[in-house]
């Protein structure tokens, strides 16, 4: 089904790289590749997790985004203080749509922004006093919080504030976890290091004193599901229907109690490998809890994953898994019957982060669509190892793609749909290409689980088959004698 040969893909990469100066070209060439399913290790054909080239438009985030925005932020009954100037907290507030239940401002704080609002004098004289005062105020105003995390922004590291000492003192005073997280934005090359730092902070401050408890027979936890648009909920019901007991959700709709519950599970189910594998590995080592990766996008992958999860349990669970798959089969067939005819053969290009560049491929294939290019903002080589098996041969892989490269690839490949972030959305829509914002499901969702797939299919159909796209040419430019439309930058 692949439309491009390896030679064509390689030629395209060369053509796009042409504009760069010699050094930049050599650097960027390592990050672009045509997929080779036979390669065992991705490191042979693609380089990842390297510093972005100065001067290009990268789409990456920072370590603070990885820690506060992804890992810590969704833990709903903790207060996450954005320690530093006001902007980082304000612009990352609630944008990721990590849904939760609770009364915001009373016992849950997910969509609120707590910040120490650094001013010039705090930079000059240090902000430790302000932080301890802030923690006192938070305690007085929101006594039902179950803990506080201090998410450092860049200046904290630059001026060398001792947030650990303040946190330790406050933790002793209030008898709650107060977690200093050293996730200054300048650390690392992307948000990926922020995930790692956040995982290490969870390990050191939340799980340090937690002892192994005898696991319940069917206890599992969902790790690395951020409940975007309700994703974790639509995953959770499937596991519960199978007879498993979900004791913890990390970290979408998650709580401190759930985190501390984790050492009593039998199996950790890891959805986003990139952001939470560190803590899963830690729990495997300390508590002996095995972890597996699963994929809840699209009926084929869901069935595969449910069987894989069930294989860790007894026959009853295995039988239940088959029952769940059989129960949803006709519903999913109805979805596919409805949308496949409208979507069959459409080409998709993805450029997102975390797990989506590989996990959603199955869902598109269920709808008869083909993913012709995919790439990650902040993946490591182990992510590409996993991706290469999922992608067709000779399809395009791009790591930390620049704004220019992505636009050029799109102009040449001409996909029918692009899935990427908000910064790319309007560029491509103005180029006349249907687009879905795949970071937070374009204000839709959930996309996980069987229920999510129905929504996913509807959204993709809405984007691609919208009548808008037939109105891209002005009426007076239609017809045979009209001058051909020409892009400004061609």
């Amino acid at each position, binding site marked *: 089904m692949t439309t491009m040969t390896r030679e064509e893909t390689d030629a395209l990469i060369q053509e796009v790289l042409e504009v760069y100066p010699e050094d930049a070209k050599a650097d960027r060439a390592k990050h672009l590749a045509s997929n080779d399913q036979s390669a065992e*290790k991705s490191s042979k054909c693609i380089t990842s997790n390297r510093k972005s080239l100065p001067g290009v438009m990268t789409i990456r985030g920072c370590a603070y985004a990885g820690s506060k925005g992804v890992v810590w932020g969704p833990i709903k009954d903790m207060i996450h203080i954005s320690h530093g100037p006001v902007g980082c907290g304000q612009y990352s507030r609630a944008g990721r749509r990590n849904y939760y239940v609770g009364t915001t401002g009373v016992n849950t704080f997910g969509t609120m922004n707590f910040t120490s609002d650094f001013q010039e004098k705090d930079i000059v004289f240090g902000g430790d006093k302000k932080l301890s005062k802030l923690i006192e105020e938070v305690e007085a105003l929101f006594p039902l919080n179950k803990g506080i995390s201090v998410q450092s922004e860049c200046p904290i590291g630059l001026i060398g504030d001792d947030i650990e000492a303040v946190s330790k003192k406050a933790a002793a005073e209030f008898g709650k976890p107060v977690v200093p997280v050293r996730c200054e934005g300048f650390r690392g090359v992307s948000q990926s290091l922020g995930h790692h730092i956040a995982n290490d902070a969870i390990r050191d401050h939340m799980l340090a004193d937690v002892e192994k408890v005898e696991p319940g027979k069917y206890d599992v936890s969902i790790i690395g599901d951020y409940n975007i648009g309700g994703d974790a909920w639509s995953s959770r019901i499937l596991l519960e229907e199978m007879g498993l007991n979900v004791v913890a959700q990390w970290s979408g709709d998650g709580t401190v109690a759930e985190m501390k519950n984790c050492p009593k599970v039998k199996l950790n189910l890891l959805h986003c490998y990139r952001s939470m594998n560190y803590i899963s590995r830690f729990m495997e080592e300390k508590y002996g809890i095995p972890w597996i990766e699963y994929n809840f996008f699209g009926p084929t992958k869901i069935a595969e994953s449910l069987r894989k999860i069930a294989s860790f349990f007894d026959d009853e669970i295995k039988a239940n898994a088959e029952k769940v798959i059989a129960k949803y089969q006709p519903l999913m067939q109805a979805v596919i019957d409805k949308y496949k005819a409208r979507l069959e053969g459409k080409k998709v290009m993805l450029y997102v982060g975390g797990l989506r560049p590989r996990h959603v491929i199955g869902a598109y294939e269920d709808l008869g669509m083909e993913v012709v290019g995919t790439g990650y903002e902040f993946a490591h080589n182990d992510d590409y190892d996993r991706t290469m098996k999922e992608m067709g041969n000779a399809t395009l892989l791009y790591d930390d793609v620049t704004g220019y490269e992505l636009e050029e690839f799109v102009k040449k490949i001409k996909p029918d749909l692009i899935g990427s972030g908000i910064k790319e959305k309007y560029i491509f829509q103005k180029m006349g290409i249907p687009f879905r914002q795949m970071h937070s499901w374009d204000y839709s969702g959930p996309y996980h689980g069987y229920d999510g797939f129905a929504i996913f299919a509807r959204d993709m159909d809405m984007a691609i088959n919208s009548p808008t796209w037939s109105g891209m040419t002005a009426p007076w430019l239609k017809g045979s004698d009209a001058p051909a439309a020409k892009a400004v930058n061609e």
Partner: protein
Amino acid sequence: MPSVMLRRTEGGKLSLYVAKKDLEEIVETVEFETPEKWGGALTLADGSVFYVDPMPEPKLPITVKAKKM
């Protein structure tokens, strides 16, 4: 002397993981593989060799100090 984590993969093979180096590789050969003495030079699938001080056979997964040869 990086800290490396040794674990069994889903397929039952021994894998070595170095978080800081972003390296996860299958261990092809282990120099000593008796219950009393386990470790030594670990040869990875990509050809690199890590040396782990011999120890009694550990319960995996385990984090140990290893030296890149």
